[in-house]
């Protein structure tokens, strides 16, 4: 029985109808396209009445194939296919002809737009005539999640998923979880102490029965697919046995290498070679920095196993654990494997390197510091116990200048975007400064004050009006040293004057940048990233936490600059997506997957086994299969598609020279019919 096809043309308000005569498109479809038995138009096909019309007509007209001429299938293919399911029609008989993005939006001439739309609809009608019913593929779900990154976003996502009753693997590459939030002094707009609200969450992670924590560990490889990811985690050699160690501090108290710049204190304080990054660290157990440890340096120089070096063994001697010491110099990296069903990526950001702004003396003058360095100065647990002191001479700065947008909104330095948090944290910095140095004066150079957020504007105004910070609208051209002062040369564009301030300290509100290895990491996960190397969400509005790979979600600043409340909210959103995914035992996958043909013997398959398909597949979905005779001898080695991994991108089908691969829903016959629909009409 031949198909009865219904064509539904959408006005999309005026999005389509302004440049396409939709009535004519519908009329022509019925007149000229074989198989079309019903056509209509609707103002908004995706609306409830629009969908009802579709459902009703499928029943009334006995339609067995549907072409909806509307927007991109990425927008509403799912919508219309779901509508078809309700009527009992197999959803893969519903096709979208994109006459919006690919037609009405790109053409101005209505005649041209209409003619092209008629062609596009005819092509899709021809394809629809050859549509076959497809059944969704069912895949098993591993009810565990992986969270990568132990900053506030990762912690929040891990806790939410774990509270939902699923096991979570949390991987952090540093020695402790906590991320940048643990470094902050007080947080805007409430000025509550960052550590006071952060550390309870860190402890909760450590104690949660559903969370398995890997610190000092990195993701080595990610394989598998939605619902069934295979993760390889590299547990870097910590040189300390976490089970034996009690964190008693004996080892780091005796360590002779005391002048190593502390990463946690942004280089303003020192640490030892065996160290705990900060007192509230989780786990509160040390790690040996093998680059700087005397024993490891000696072992490297002499090319001997570290255990054989006798240069310094103070930490192991001091370790009170017996009979087996908690310190183990011979520990090596270990690869552990975990299976998970979903992944949350929360790998965070890094601060723009200060050396990039030579004109501001970044990296050159000791008293020119970055925003994060100021946080450490202002933090009670910081190198100065919360006193604002100049790194050069420990003097309290009486005049301090804050420069906003250092890196941000500056395409010449490679960041065209706004880092979003700096206006607020600079306002906060001026307040913290004023609270600690009562007689001091803070100046702020800004381009715009962007404080959009609940209670944010009020906060910034408070800094200016109540805390007396002087805000100057303009850029700073140069900072140079004069005696023990730093001269800041800038412009005040509101008065049109040049400003010269002799400051005692300068704080740069440095941009938030993507992690250095973001690109490499994204490729490991097969997720997309943008020009600034931040990971891309699949839809900026409607799918803000979904990455381009199914089952991998994004949280926090790895996706773009954001502040704590936003990062936490996004982490919660990602966690809810993960929970929904893990709530069922089986997942249904789109059956739009590739298949390598199989034939009767003696051919078995027209595949010749060149495996170009395997090489081009971005999802590692193609395997080699030996076709064997009864005696077990291999007759032929051919390609085979793993349906669980295949995302239906079609690269393999396009690459195959012998045309041995077809994509379900986009098979050769269909593509051929579409092409011919243009050529011969």
């Amino acid at each position, binding site marked *: 029985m031949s198909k009865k096809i219904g064509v539904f043309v959408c006005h999309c308000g005026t999005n389509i109808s302004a440049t396409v005569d939709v009535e004519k498109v519908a009329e022509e479809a019925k007149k000229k396209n074989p198989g079309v038995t019903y056509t209509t138009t609707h103002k908004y096909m995706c609306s409830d009445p629009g969908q009802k019309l579709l459902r009703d007509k499928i029943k009334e007209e006995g339609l067995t194939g549907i072409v909806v001429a509307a927007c991109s299938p990425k927008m509403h293919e799912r919508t219309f296919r779901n509508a078809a399911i309700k009527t009992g029609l197999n959803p893969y008989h519903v096709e979208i002809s994109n006459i919006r993005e690919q037609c009405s939006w790109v053409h101005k001439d209505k005649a041209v737009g209409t003619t092209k739309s008629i062609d596009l609809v005819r092509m899709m009608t021809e394809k629809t005539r050859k549509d076959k019913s497809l059944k969704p593929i069912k895949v098993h779900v591993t009810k565990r999640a992986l969270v990568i990154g132990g900053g506030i976003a990762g912690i929040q996502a891990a806790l939410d998923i774990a509270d939902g009753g699923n096991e979570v693997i949390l991987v952090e590459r540093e020695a402790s979880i906590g991320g940048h939030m643990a470094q902050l002094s007080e947080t805007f707009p409430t000025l509550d102490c960052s550590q006071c609200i952060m550390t309870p969450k860190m402890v909760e992670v450590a104690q949660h029965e559903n969370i398995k924590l890997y610190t000092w560990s990195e993701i080595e490889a990610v394989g598998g697919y939605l619902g069934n990811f295979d993760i390889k985690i590299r547990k870097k050699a910590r040189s300390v046995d976490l089970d034996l160690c009690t964190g008693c501090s004996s080892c780091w108290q005796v360590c002779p290498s005391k002048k190593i710049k502390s990463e946690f204190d942004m280089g303003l304080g020192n640490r030892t070679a065996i160290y705990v990054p900060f007192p509230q660290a989780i786990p509160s157990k040390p790690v040996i920095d093998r680059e700087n440890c005397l024993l490891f340096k000696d072992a490297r120089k002499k090319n001997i196993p570290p255990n054989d070096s006798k240069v310094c063994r103070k930490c192991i001697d001091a370790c009170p654990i017996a009979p087996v010491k908690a310190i183990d110099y011979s520990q090596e990296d270990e690869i552990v494997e975990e299976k998970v069903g979903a992944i949350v990526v929360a790998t965070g950001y890094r601060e723009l390197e200060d050396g990039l702004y030579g004109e501001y003396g970044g990296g050159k003058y000791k008293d020119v510091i970055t925003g994060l360095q100021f946080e450490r100065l202002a933090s009670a647990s910081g190198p100065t116990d919360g006193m604002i002191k100049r790194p050069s001479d420990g003097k309290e700065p009486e005049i301090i200048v804050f420069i906003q947008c250092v890196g941000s909104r500056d395409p010449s330095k490679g960041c065209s975007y706004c880092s979003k948090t700096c206006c607020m944290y600079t306002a906060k910095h001026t307040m913290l400064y004023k609270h600690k140095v009562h007689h001091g004066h803070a100046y702020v150079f800004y381009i715009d004050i962007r404080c959009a957020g609940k209670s944010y504007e009020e906060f910034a105004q408070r800094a200016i009006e109540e805390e007396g910070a002087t805000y100057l609208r303009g850029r700073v051209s140069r900072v140079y040293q004069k005696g023990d002062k730093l001269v800041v040369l800038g412009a005040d564009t509101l008065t049109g004057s040049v400003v010269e301030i002799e400051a005692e300290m300068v704080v740069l509100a440095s941009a938030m940048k993507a992690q250095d290895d973001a690109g490499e990491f994204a490729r490991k996960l097969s997720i997309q990233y943008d020009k600034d190397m931040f990971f891309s969400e699949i839809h900026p509005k409607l799918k803000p936490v979904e990455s381009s790979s199914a089952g991998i979600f994004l949280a926090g600043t790895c996706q773009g600059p954001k502040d704590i409340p936003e990062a936490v909210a996004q982490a919660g959103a990602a966690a809810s997506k993960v929970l929904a995914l893990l709530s069922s035992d089986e997942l249904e996958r789109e059956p739009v997957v590739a298949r390598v043909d199989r034939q009767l013997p003696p*051919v078995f398959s*027209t595949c*010749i*086994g*060149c*495996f*170009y398909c395997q*090489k*081009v597949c971005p999802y590692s979905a193609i395997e080699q299969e030996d076709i064997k005779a009864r005696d077990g001898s291999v007759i032929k*080695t051919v390609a085979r598609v793993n349906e669980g991994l295949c995302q239906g991108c079609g690269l393999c089908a396009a*690459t195959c*020279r*012998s*045309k*041995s691969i077809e994509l379900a829903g986009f098979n*050769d*016959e269909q593509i*051929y*019919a579409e092409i011919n629909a243009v050529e011969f009409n």
Partner: protein
Amino acid sequence: MIEALRKKAEELLRSKTVDVIYGYGEGSTPERTRPVFITKPEDVNKLTWNKYCVYNLTTYLKRQEARKLGKPAIVVKGCDAKTIIVLIKESQIKREDVYILGVTCNGVGEPQATKCKACDIHTPRIYDELIGEKIENKEISFEERYAEIEEYEKLSEKDKWEFWQKQFAKCIKCYACSSICPLCFCDRCIVDKNQPQWIDPSAHPRGNLSWNVTRAYHLAGRCINCEECQRVCPADIPLNLLNKKLAKETEKNFKYRAGYNIDDELAMATYKEDDNQDFIK
């Protein structure tokens, strides 16, 4: 050299290292040679080597009739050896399943074949046994390598189109180009697929165009320019112009020469971050 070749062949057959030798034998006239398949040690005197050994014996590696004879040793010139590298990279043959008798060569054909004019592989870059004095592989510049298509590249797009229309009109769809090509190894060629029939099999202008263009595209980044397709074409279509042009674009854009280095990743199946992407507008 012939003696060394025969001696080695005899040794390989006697020791049962291989079952068959694919080599060149004397033809019906002195300026012709033909392929011989030697399975018995006493027949090795049928093997020969001279400047008339123009063609590329590796095409027999894809022939079931030849493969049935067992593990081969194959006589290859430097240019032909490139085919074996591509076949290995494309999983068509395992390195250990073929014994390579590499012959050094200063050019073949009378007059000399075009492919020899810009040759930089007088000594094969892959072999198990080298026959003949090693000849230094002198470097040849990119421009020199593709000098033969310079004239063609100067044509305007319109003239190129007219040129090919004229050339392809001569095609009689005998598929000799595909039969001789050592890298056209699909069991079922795209032209044999008739559901749907992507390429019209009969010899009319549209079918001829789609066949010849598809053939060239399927060899892009793979063809090692042995020129066999052009040599056997009964209609004298300059097929290697297309092949060479595609090889030039591949080398220019992806720094890749098919069959040159066994360690190079296949250009058309590999994505590298520093791939030239200027052509994507």
